[in-house]
């Protein structure tokens, strides 16, 4: 049986504690850095939200000016140009998204990529479906196309709220989950609040159908105005939550 020198035993313990402190600090730092990089997602939301909001502002101001100063035909012509321009903006944003995705593909962890892809689908798939609906509408004029387009907007809003909720759950953000829940509660409220020109009359008359169109369009505009703020809010939140990732930024 050997007896240990108390001094050397004490030195050994100190060395153990020092190693333990160093290793714990190292493990914490690495785990923290390896977490989902929200800066990528924040960039996506900020760019997308800002572009859509800027376009909406441009669209509203120009439409207002033209409607007050020009004929009905000019207004109709302008709305076609603006619609085409809005799709061009969406396509430009999609090109930016693809380029960013290509840049980060090799250097990002798989969960960040999955989240980035999910939101890419959420933001761009409705635009693609809308373009298809418009093209079908050009080929086969039908009232159902107008309904389809406006209903798509409602579905997009609902789907995005659900996506915000699950993104919050995925990254462990209670704030994001609460905001998503509030937006989800707002969804049926937005849908149910009647506008003055919609009185719930039977829908078998052309005039009533026009009221329904106007109702849907007004709701559609409300959602179109709300969503960019949701994107910008999520962008700012994501950027603030995960700054200075080990992966850096292009």
């Amino acid at each position, binding site marked *: 049986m050997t007896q240990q020198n108390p001094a050397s035993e004490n030195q050994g313990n100190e060395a153990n504690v020092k190693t333990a*402190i160093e*290793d714990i600090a*190292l*493990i914490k730092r690495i*785990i923290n850095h390896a*977490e989902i990089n929200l800066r990528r997602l924040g960039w996506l939301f900020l760019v997308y939200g800002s572009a859509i909001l800027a376009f909406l502002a441009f669209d509203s101001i120009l439409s207002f000016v033209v409607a007050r100063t020009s004929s009905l035909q000019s207004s109709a012509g302008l709305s076609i140009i603006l619609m085409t321009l809005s799709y061009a903006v969406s396509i430009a944003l999609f090109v930016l998204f693809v380029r960013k995705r290509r840049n980060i593909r*090799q250097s990002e*962890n*798989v969960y960040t990529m999955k989240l980035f892809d999910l939101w890419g689908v959420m933001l761009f798939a409705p635009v693609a479906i809308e373009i298809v609906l418009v093209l079908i509408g050009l080929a086969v004029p039908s009232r159902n196309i107008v309904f389809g387009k406006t209903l798509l907007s409602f579905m997009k809003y609902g789907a995005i709220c659900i996506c915000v909720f699950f993104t919050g759950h995925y990254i462990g953000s209670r704030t994001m989950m609460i905001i998503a829940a509030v937006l989800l509660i707002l969804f049926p409220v937005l849908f149910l609040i009647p506008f003055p020109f919609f009185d719930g009359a039977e829908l078998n008359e052309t005039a009533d159908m026009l009221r329904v169109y106007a109702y849907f369009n007004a709701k559609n505009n409300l959602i179109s105005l709300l969503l960019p703020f949701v994107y910008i809010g999520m962008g700012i939140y994501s950027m603030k939550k995960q700054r200075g990732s080990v992966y850096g930024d292009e």
Partner: protein
Amino acid sequence: MEMNNIPEMFQSKLRLMIVSGLIKQPLSFTALKQLTGATDGNLSVQISKLTDAGYIIVRKEFSGKKPLTTCELTQYGRDSFRQYVELLNSILAGK
């Protein structure tokens, strides 16, 4: 597990960094390189050692035309890491 009986895999800081990085999700070789700041050669050697010891598995796929190497922690590696963290905590708690 005693401090003087630490598994060889955790005696290297780089191997500890690799395992810590993989604890929450699989990572690509490039991501691990950026995470640890290690050189390609050094990282490859340590990944091979961890693979041989059964701590991680390495998947080689193609992302488009580019090869993509992804590392993932095994259950054995996860358990060993958990035991090591428990040991570190017990040392700091003075047990």
